């Protein structure tokens, strides 16, 4: 009988050990269970030697019941409670009851021994069946667990990949943003450089344009001082020539007017230059387009003259006196005009170089009042624009000038200023070798 007890206890302990090993390895419990295993084997050996089954079976029973009760209180086996009880419970119950009956001698009085032996057998079979079933289930669970682990690993891998990609995309996005920022900065710098380049072309012209009115201011002041001296002399004389005095006073008045006029002229040029170099305010103001065109035509002309003494061109201005004030951004339209004039002079220069003797360079500016718009034409009889180039002239960075001489931004910026900034049109009409005419049309 005790062999069955031993087997039940032994397999229960083994089962617990493998359960712990596979779910949550616990050296403390492992040691305890190992000890229990030795105790069980030891008990079997003691029983075999002393052959006092009437005593030892109580030890088995007490051990098994105690063991089961003890396990019930252990948190490590909380999930196993029911299974252990279902598997081992019947056997222990049958064993304890049959031992009890045997000990009290009821076995001999009642005809139940064979039932108990049968019950013990079935309980053992039940226990083994349960054990097998449990193993099978455990295997299925292990497979399931492995599968889940695999899935978890897989999803972790996926998450890692996603994180990696996200990081990569974020990095690329940041790089792109940085590049975009740098591009914007470069664009601003290029526009500023274009402005400065055109201002540089102007410097000599500006100096000349300021020098002339300043000379007049100085000369008229000096001559006025002389006139005053003359007037004072005349008043000292006993027989004063009042006619001469009148004449001198008239001249003085005229000179003061001229000084003011030329002072203002210089002032306007300096203001224009400052406006040209300043970042565009974008503020539209009522402006005299004729005066603006005249001012920039002179600046461009003298600018080129100062750079190249042999350069010359006949300037024709046909300004429509009926042109009202037009709302525009002064420095922007000024930049456009300057660009068109400089281009016109450049084209005549090129042609003059080709035909030095026969060619007479002419640059003309015309303004016209149209219904609902004003028109300003810049015409030159220079080299013209070849068909192949015509489509590209408004593209940024396109230039026909030798490298380093043109930014290729002049006409592209001009186009933007006229169309986007003022809602106008900028058109070109040209014939290679004959002429080029740019027409700006601004809505009033």
């Amino acid at each position, binding site marked *: 009988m005790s062999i069955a007890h031993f087997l039940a206890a032994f397999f229960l302990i083994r089962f617990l050990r493998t359960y712990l090993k596979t779910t949550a390895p616990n050296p403390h419990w492992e040691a305890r269970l190992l000890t229990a295993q030795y105790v069980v084997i030891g008990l079997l050996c003691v029983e075999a030697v002393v052959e006092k089954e009437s005593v030892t079976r109580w030890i088995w029973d007490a051990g098994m019941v105690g063991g089961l009760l003890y396990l019930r209180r252990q948190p490590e086996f909380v999930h196993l409670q029911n299974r252990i009880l279902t598997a081992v419970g019947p056997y222990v119950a049958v064993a304890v009851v049959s031992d009890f009956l045997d000990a009290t001698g009821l076995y001999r009085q009642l005809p139940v021994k064979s039932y108990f032996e049968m019950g013990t057998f079935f309980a053992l079979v039940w226990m083994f069946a349960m054990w097998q079933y449990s193993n099978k289930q455990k295997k299925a669970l292990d497979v399931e667990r492995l599968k889940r682990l695999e899935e978890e690993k897989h999803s972790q891998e996926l998450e890692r990949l996603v994180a990696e990609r996200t990081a990569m995309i974020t990095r690329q996005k940041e790089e792109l943003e940085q590049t975009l920022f740098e591009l914007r900065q470069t664009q601003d710098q290029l526009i500023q450089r274009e402005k400065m380049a055109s201002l540089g072309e102007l410097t000599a012209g500006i100096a*000349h344009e300021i020098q002339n009115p300043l000379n007049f201011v100085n000369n008229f002041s000096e001559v006025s001082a002389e006139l005053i001296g003359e007037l004072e002399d005349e008043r000292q004389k006993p027989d004063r020539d009042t006619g001469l005095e009148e004449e001198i006073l008239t001249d003085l008045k005229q*000179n003061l007017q*001229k000084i003011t006029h*030329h002072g203002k002229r210089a002032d306007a040029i300096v203001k224009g230059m400052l406006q040209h170099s300043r970042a565009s305010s974008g503020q539209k103001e009522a402006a005299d387009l004729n005066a603006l065109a005249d001012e920039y035509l002179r600046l461009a002309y*003298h600018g080129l003259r100062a750079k190249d003494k042999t350069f*010359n061109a*006949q*300037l024709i201005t046909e300004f429509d006196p009926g042109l009202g004030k037009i709302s525009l951004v002064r420095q922007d339209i000024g930049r456009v005009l300057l660009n068109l004039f400089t281009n016109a002079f450049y084209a005549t220069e090129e042609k003059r170089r080709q035909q030095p003797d026969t060619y007479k360079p002419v640059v003309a500016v015309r303004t016209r009042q149209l219904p609902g718009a004003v028109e300003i034409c810049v015409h030159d009889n220079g080299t013209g624009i070849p068909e192949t180039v015509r489509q590209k002239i408004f593209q940024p960075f396109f230039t026909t000038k030798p490298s380093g001489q043109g930014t290729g931004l002049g006409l592209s910026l001009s186009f933007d200023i006229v169309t986007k900034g003022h809602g106008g049109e900028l058109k070109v009409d040209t014939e290679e070798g004959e002429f080029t005419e740019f027409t700006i049309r601004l809505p009033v």
Partner: protein
Amino acid sequence: MKILVVDDETDIQSLFEQRFRREIRNGDFSFAFAHSGESALTYLTEHPSEVVLILSDINMPGMSGLELLREIRTTQPAPPPKVMMITAYGDNDSYNQAMQYGANDFLTKPLDFSLLKEKLKNTI
């Protein structure tokens, strides 16, 4: 003696008239004015052998002072008037070219009128 002043700045006329008011009143000089090279040539053909001296600016739109000088020196009948060139840019190129074309003198702006007066008196 008649002096033709050529400059595209129109105010140069009243400036000269006032600077030389004594000389004009005394009848030492008389002035004529042209505002471009082209009109200077027209004046010269309309008033033959009247002008003794020409004072011309170099930097003018259209025909420049140097071209005017070349025209005078190549097409005008003898005796050709004296020509003084005036420029705001006192560069060697302009000077050399002016001299090569046969200018009698070369002045730079701003004009020193007392020096100009001396030169004009010496020219007579």
